[in-house]
């Protein structure tokens, strides 16, 4: 009798120990989010979705997975390419399912943790619901959420990764988006030459310095440092393209005063995110400057700062361009942490 008791107690202890070890083993590794010096507190809720190594890796796998689209040809990364600061390089519109075009220029994905609303018309109010939009859009990935979740559930690698990131193998929209968000908020670009100069680690050359002064006078009220956007929506005098009829913010609010207002885009990595404008109608920075000083068509909703257009001399355009080139952050563009999982870990031999 006594022996049985001792045995039972021992068994309990062993069980508790095993349980403890198993729980410890399943605890994901926290991932630190570093706020660059002098930047404001991020808008992203890290308590709702704590960053972990496992969550980030899962998010990265999802971001690069073509199976999130209807015919397994398009991933998030198809239109958000790292070498273009996660915009679509050299394309006014991105290419969607079945030879379709998007109707807006894919924005760079950077410093999303500080952004409260998303898309050119800011119709999306939370980063956690943002990934649904391109997945279900007919001219993007054209897939249903049910199918995406089903595909993930059938893949044992995903089951394992969801378990590692969230503690159990439940796979649903919320968890998929939380994982994607973990990858997305880590996309911080804060190490361009401009940033190094601000930190006192580097110096501008003469054109860059002159350009910076002109930029602060002429551009910075909307393209506010350090994000190079004030996150507002404004009409900058781009006339309506009647083949698209994109009325911008008015589509969301239904308010006539919001007609043709679009989000002020960040100018970080601007050199490699061309073409420009919500519909990518400007192929070069020179096109943009010509728009501001000559071609814009102010209407009643055009921003008050631009009612008389924005004069820039040829000389000023040269200097501002030199400054804008300092916003290219090559460490961000080449960071292996953000590269496709297959490329960052192992070499895959393609056999055709």
């Amino acid at each position: 009798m006594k022996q049985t008791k001792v045995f039972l107690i021992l068994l309990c202890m062993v069980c508790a120990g095993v349980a403890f070890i198993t729980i410890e083993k399943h605890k994901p590794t926290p991932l630190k989010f570093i706020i660059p010096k002098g930047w404001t507190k991020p808008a992203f809720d890290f308590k709702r979705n704590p960053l972990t190594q496992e969550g980030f890796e899962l998010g990265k796998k999802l971001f690069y997975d073509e199976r999130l689209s209807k015919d397994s040809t398009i991933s998030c990364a198809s239109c958000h390419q790292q070498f273009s600061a996660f915009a679509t390089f050299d394309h006014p519109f991105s290419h969607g399912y079945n030879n379709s075009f998007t109707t807006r220029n894919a924005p760079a994905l950077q410093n999303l943790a500080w952004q409260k609303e998303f898309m050119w018309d800011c119709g999306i109010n939370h980063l956690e619901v943002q990934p649904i939009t391109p997945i279900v859009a007919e001219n993007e990935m054209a897939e249903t959420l049910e199918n995406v979740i089903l595909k993930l559930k059938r893949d044992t690698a995903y089951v394992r990764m969801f378990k590692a990131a969230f503690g159990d193998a439940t796979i649903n929209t919320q968890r998929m988006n939380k994982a994607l968000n973990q990858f997305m908020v880590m996309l911080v670009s804060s190490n361009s030459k401009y940033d190094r100069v601000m930190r006192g680690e580097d110096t501008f050359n003469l054109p860059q310095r002159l350009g910076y002064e002109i930029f602060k006078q002429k551009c910075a009220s909307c393209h506010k440092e350090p994000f190079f956007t004030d996150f507002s929506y404004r009409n900058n005098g781009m006339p309506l393209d009647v083949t698209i009829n994109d009325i911008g913010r008015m589509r969301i609010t239904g308010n006539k005063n919001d007609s043709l207002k679009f989000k002020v885009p960040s100018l970080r990595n601007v050199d490699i995110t061309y073409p420009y404008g919500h519909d990518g109608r400007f192929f070069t920075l020179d096109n943009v400057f010509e728009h501001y000083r000559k071609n814009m068509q102010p209407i009643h909703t055009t921003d008050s700062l631009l009612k008389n257009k924005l004069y820039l001399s040829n000389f000023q355009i040269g200097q501002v361009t030199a400054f804008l080139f300092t916003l290219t952050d090559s460490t961000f563009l080449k960071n292996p942490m953000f590269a496709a999982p297959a490329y960052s870990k192992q070499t895959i031999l393609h056999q055709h």
Partner: protein
Amino acid sequence: MRKNVTLCMLFSLLYFIASAQNNTVIKLVHKVGDKTLKLHTETYFNQFNEPFTVHKFKYYITGLQIEYENGKKKYTFEKPYHLVAEEDSTTKMITLNKPLKNITTISFLLGVDSLRNVSGAQTDDLDPMKGMFWTWNTGYIYAKLEGQSDSSHAAAHYFSYHVGGYKFNENAARKIVLKIDEKSQPSINEITIEADILKWFAGANEIKISNAAVCHQPGALAMMLADNYKNMFTITAIR
């Protein structure tokens, strides 16, 4: 002796389970005027003599609360957000984990509270994959009525009412309060609530399919539809 005690415990447990199963069920019945709704096949006529069929009928019941014991007690349904869909009969039977008697009021929000509209991706019945979510202009669709009508000028004569909106002046969530006059109901097994689709077209506002066949965003039309359909529920039987 020990065997007897065990048996005793087992029986009391069984009795407990059996008594707990004595629940009150709310049964939702969808009607078009005096006819019971049948998807796809049946043609109905609205108040303006416009013919229509129904392909989809869905809505959210949020924060279902029942006042019972002649208004002295309140019972809140455990599931805060419940999506009712005509095509899924299980969603039309709401089992309350409590036998209720002498009910005075049944109330709920028809729609989703504004907080859930701005708090990221939700789970269960609020999972965006349920198809009651606007992806391009974040927000829940609170109620959905889709079908076809020869009076519709939209493509393939479809009509499609998706009602939602949480922002100021666009909030289409409606508080529904159903009062019960019947004096005494010593024990209730089932409460039947009917929802009449005809109420969508007339009431506070006249909405003709020929004039407005499509509502796919928050705004004036969504508000008008919500003001109409908030009167679609009636308690028809308590037994």
